[in-house]
């Protein structure tokens, strides 16, 4: 990337951090989902010794995991289930949310605030602009997801130490999620937003349209919670692969549609 593209990324980050509309959800949602909820779990696990394993069908769900829960106390079981089954799916909401908010600000925001045409009068080509905007949005979204995971890891490992006497995060599943699935899903969210930017005229329009991309993750979450579809390592790897292919296809199509006549 050239200097002008870095200037574009720098400007986009500055705009995102200076707008409450974008910055507040980026801060609050990860804090609630990946910090406050696990913290509540760690504190609450000691009081719910017989709660979770007593749930209807929970025993059958545990069987699907083989030896994972053998020999664990009820509190340890509850924490293991949450950290390895529920939070991975919950976490996937973070990069999608970041990508859609930052992407809406970066792509649709330019259109809404009539600044896109200003950029078109500069020597930066539309393709360079597209690459800079995609790279900047993916970078910020992924870094936000990583920062969220770091905070999640701190809470889970500190809390988990009291129950397990060892570090419980990250394991192989989380590593696949962090370094394989998350970058892919971030790019997917951004590519989706670029497509949306050709149709949406305001930040709110774009946000409403972006709800569609959250649906598969909600379904995944439901699948996890009901035990219908449990994410193990091979499935996660496969999901990452499918997402990577979708990324390439969507980005190609999005860049073809990123032309002045559709944007102005």
């Amino acid at each position, binding site marked *: 990337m050239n*200097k*002008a593209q870095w*200037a*574009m990324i720098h*400007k986009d980050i*500055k*705009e995102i951090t*200076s*707008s409450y509309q974008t910055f507040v959800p980026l801060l609050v949602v990860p804090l609630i989902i990946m910090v406050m909820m696990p913290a509540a779990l760690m504190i609450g696990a000691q009081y719910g010794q017989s709660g979770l394993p007593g749930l209807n069908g929970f025993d059958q769900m545990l069987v699907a995991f083989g030896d994972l829960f053998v020999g664990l106390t009820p509190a340890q079981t509850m924490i293991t289930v949450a950290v390895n089954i529920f939070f991975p799916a919950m976490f996937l909401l973070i990069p999608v949310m970041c990508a859609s908010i930052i992407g809406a600000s970066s792509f649709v925001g330019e259109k809404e*605030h*009539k*600044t896109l*045409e*200003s*950029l*078109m*009068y*500069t*020597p*930066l*080509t539309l393709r360079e602009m597209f690459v800079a905007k995609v790279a900047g949005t993916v970078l910020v979204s992924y870094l936000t997801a990583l920062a969220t995971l770091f905070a999640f890891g701190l809470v889970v490992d500190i809390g988990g130490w009291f129950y397990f006497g060892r570090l419980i995060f990250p394991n192989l599943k989380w590593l696949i999620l962090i370094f394989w699935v998350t970058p892919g899903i971030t790019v997917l969210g951004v590519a989706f937003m670029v497509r949306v930017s050709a149709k949406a005229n305001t930040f709110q329009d774009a946000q409403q349209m972006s709800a569609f991309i959250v649906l598969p993750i909600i379904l995944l979450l439901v699948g996890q919670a009901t035990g219908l579809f449990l994410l193990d390592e091979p499935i996660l790897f496969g999901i990452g692969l499918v997402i990577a292919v979708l990324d390439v296809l969507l980005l190609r199509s999005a860049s073809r549609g990123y032309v*002045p*006549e559709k944007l*102005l």
Partner: protein
Amino acid sequence: MQAITVEKVGKVYQSGTKALSDVSFEIPQGEVFGFLGPNGAGKTTMVRLLNGILNPTAGHASVHGLDVTKQAGEVHHLCGVLTETAAPYESLTGLENLKFFGRLHGMDEKRILSRAAGLLQAMELTEHRDKKVKAYSTGMKKRLLLARALLHEPKVLFLDEPTSGLDPEASANVTAMIGGLVKQEGVTVFLCTHQLKYAEEICTLYGFMQQGELMGFGTFEELLARQGGRTRLVLRGENLPVLAGAEYASGGGMAVPVRDDAEVSEILRNILTGGGQLYEARQERWGLEELYFSYREPKSIGLKLEGKKEEGGEVA
């Protein structure tokens, strides 16, 4: 040297809308070209096209010899654009806006800061340079946009209503600055405006657009000559005879096109000898407003002129 060359350019949007049709003109370097026409005439499309943002569907255009379609990046280095459809970043400060656009133009930091300081001072924005643009008034935003357009020292300046929203003093300063750029640095100005009085004050060359077609192009004198170079004799009185080509003039009088003083003298003599009473007789040379409307609606020029004068002299 020609700063802008447009040859048989046409533009039809994907939606099927015909925005430009067979438009040709050449603007020499150092001219202030007034591109005049009502909304929807194709002015914005032409500005976008000459800056390589849109591609023509017919014909060819170049800026300082550079093909606007194939060499758009180089054209952007040469051109500065101020248009109401290209806004500044409101969440950034005035100075941050200039720094950002300076970087996009490949300027080094030292040059950006020095140019920005000079332009902010010229636009009387120095004390507001660290305020976010969302706190700026309309006039301040317009001055910042002009500073942004001039930042990289363009050779061709595209200005869309540069003085709208400015107070008279700021407007005069901007006009003086544009004049200075043209005289001292040979900058070519492509001015789109609805304010015909302003265009008449500043422009040296004109193009009249209507529904995507160029109705007239040239200097004021050339355009006037093409329309017959008519001077009008406005008469007010009683028992005036019906004169050939006479049109209604507001206030109860009539306006007659005349060629020269001899014809005026003859008309007046005929009226007086024929028993007519004259209270007022004056010759009116066309201004830009009259000339413009004569190209847009040549057959109804007389009536339109009187109506438009009462409206204050702005194009629709």
